[in-house]
């Protein structure tokens, strides 16, 4: 297309288009892109203090890859994803299907499942800390056990994973519910005339039809899990013996950057995490061709 051939009206329309997207683009550049560039630069620097950086090349990365604590945190993050993502999505789909069925008080249930998302993560974590409390927690009272949920290295990650799934399942369910409601009823009718049972319907109609939504949910949930920080921060103190066994990459980043003041090293951890997320997301986009159905 030749630009000079644009009519005056078309050009004006084009200009308006730019003006309309400008706030978003400017916001994206100022708030996301530029800080990313700065973080990338900082990862090659030592932070001297108060925003002054000294270029030190790859030293942060060399130190990082030689650090056992870093690899432990990387594994913790992956382990956390393995614990939360599959369980979370299956549960969310289950809840969505229940809410899609003809049940009484459907509106009430939807509200209840969505409620955790409205609560501040910090408040959620504080409440769960008391539930998990080894001495006085209601969970141990119910189980009649004395499990040190948050301080025992074996159970600490599981405890955080439970809270994470609990607080995200409602949101995912609402997204999946929207996907379920978009499935035309006629498909089920035709299918049952053909004599298919409920289970077969689920695998031949529901699952393929909802797969695009599931794909979005999967991507978002994986990213959120790989960036998990607030729950661990709230549930795990500096003196927790299980700290090393539960700290995620983002928590390690926080401790390096804001507690030790080594922002360069912290930035290197962030770049590593971003690379991991990028890799996982690329793999998913490649893998989706095998299981996501976009047309019937």
């Amino acid at each position, binding site marked *: 297309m030749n630009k000079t051939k644009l009519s005056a009206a078309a050009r004006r329309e084009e200009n308006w288009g730019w003006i309309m997207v400008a706030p978003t683009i400017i916001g994206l550049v100022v708030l996301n892109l530029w800080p990313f560039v700065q973080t990338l630069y900082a990862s090659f620097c030592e932070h001297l*203090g108060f925003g002054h950086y000294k270029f030190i090349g790859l030293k942060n990365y060399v130190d990082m890859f030689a650090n056992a604590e870093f690899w432990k945190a990387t594994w913790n993050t992956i382990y956390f994803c393995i614990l939360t993502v599959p369980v979370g999505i299956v549960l969310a789909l289950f809840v969505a299907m229940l809410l899609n069925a003809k049940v009484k008080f459907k509106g009430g249930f939807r509200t209840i499942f969505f409620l955790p998302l409205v609560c501040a993560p910090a408040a959620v974590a504080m409440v769960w*800390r008391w539930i998990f409390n080894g001495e006085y927690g209601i969970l141990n009272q119910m189980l009649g056990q004395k499990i*040190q949920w948050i*301080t025992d290295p074996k159970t600490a990650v599981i405890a955080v994973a439970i809270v994470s799934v609990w607080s995200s399942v409602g949101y995912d369910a609402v997204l999946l519910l929207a996907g379920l409601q978009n499935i035309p009823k006629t498909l089920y009718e035709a299918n049952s005339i053909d004599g298919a049972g409920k289970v077969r319907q689920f695998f031949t109609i529901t699952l393929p039809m909802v797969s695009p939504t599931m794909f979005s949910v999967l991507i978002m949930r994986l990213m959120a899990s790989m960036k998990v920080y607030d729950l661990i921060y709230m549930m795990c103190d*500096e*003196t927790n*013996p299980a700290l090393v066994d539960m700290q995620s990459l983002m928590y390690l980043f926080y401790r390096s950057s804001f507690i030790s*003041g080594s922002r360069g090293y912290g930035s290197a951890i962030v770049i590593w995490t971003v690379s991991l997320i990028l890799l996982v997301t690329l793999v998913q986009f490649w893998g989706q061709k095998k299981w996501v159905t976009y047309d019937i």
Partner: protein
Amino acid sequence: MRKLPRMIAAALLLALLLSVTGCGGSADGKTHLTFQIWDVNQRDGMQAMCDAYTAQHPDVVIDVQVTSWSEYWTKLEAAAESNTMPDIYWMHTDQILYYADFGILADLTDLYADEDPDYYSNHFSDVSIANASGSDGHIYGVPKDKDNVVLVYNKEMFDAAGVAYPDENWTWDDMMAASQQVYDKTGKYGYMAYNDEQLGYWNFVYQNGGYILDENNVYAGYTNPATADAIKFYVDIQKNDWCPDQTYFTETSPGTAFFSEVGCMFLEGSWNLLSEMQNYPEMVGKWDIAPLPKCPNPASGDGRGTISNGLCYSTAAKGKNLELVKDVLRFFGGEEGQRIQGESGAAIPAYLGLEDTWTTSFKSFDYLLDVDVCYDQFDYAVKYINNATRRKWKPTVADEMVKVYKGADIDSSLARMQEIADSYVTTE
């Protein structure tokens, strides 16, 4: 009609610009100062002090702002980078060297030069001045308060177990024996020793004649025999039945355990006493405080010691209202300002001779806590441990302590802690 959207857009833009630039001036013609603190319990005391100043200077308004401790330093550092710091802010010993050595803080050494060249040494203790000084020995904050660590004990449990209350002659052995006795007779925990520096093992180290940093604040002393023995003694306290272990303390702080009446002793900072009197009204009269128990056979010294820290008021070297702020600081560090702070109960004034003004607010309770203990302990108080590199090695050393409590070999952990702290000596 087509012009209408453009006019609206222009109006919105104008409003935006005004809101951005509009914060500089003030409508009432007064100078507005901001005063940033982190302890909500001291807000009223700080406000009272500011009110006394503004009563004498009607053209000044001081706005006291509280930010929680966990966010305070992140915010303050960001403000320092963008040169938008509050006019006056509290400074903590953990951070003062970082800020002062980087040239962020205004040098206040000559603040009282006209009045009295030796003002600081005449009115503040050496520990207070040291806690407010930069690495260059200049003063970067007006000493605000001072504190130390005391032994808090439950009188009812001591009575029930038939043990005499702790006094200034108590030793570690007495504390251990009393703990056992209380546990045997009442089933309650004894002295609750948890993984903490200032409210924990530091005190024991100095009582035993050891040190965390040598007298020049350069080399660490973790492998010094007196230090190592004291830390081992402290860590091993949790091996007794009468002391909960670290997993317990991760979820339940000794203070929480004490005030829910499951344990009978813990170490507490003097700065928390007033709020504990206020927050646990049903406990008033059931507990009291005593000097820290002495080390019975110290490697050196008389076995006494308590860690004493103090805050100070600082301001930015590049502050816009520096001259005015200095005048306010002069008032905060003066007799009147310090007296108001003490009487409000906010904290023990750093100003020598005004310590007992702090008793005032304790008199409002049915039971008068033995706060004289806090004042008497200043005679042998140890300066809070700090040097310019500590903020870098503190978290790593703390991680090693966590491993010790998880069962790692203590001697190799102490060697590792020594190595970590000393690795910063030459490079800085």
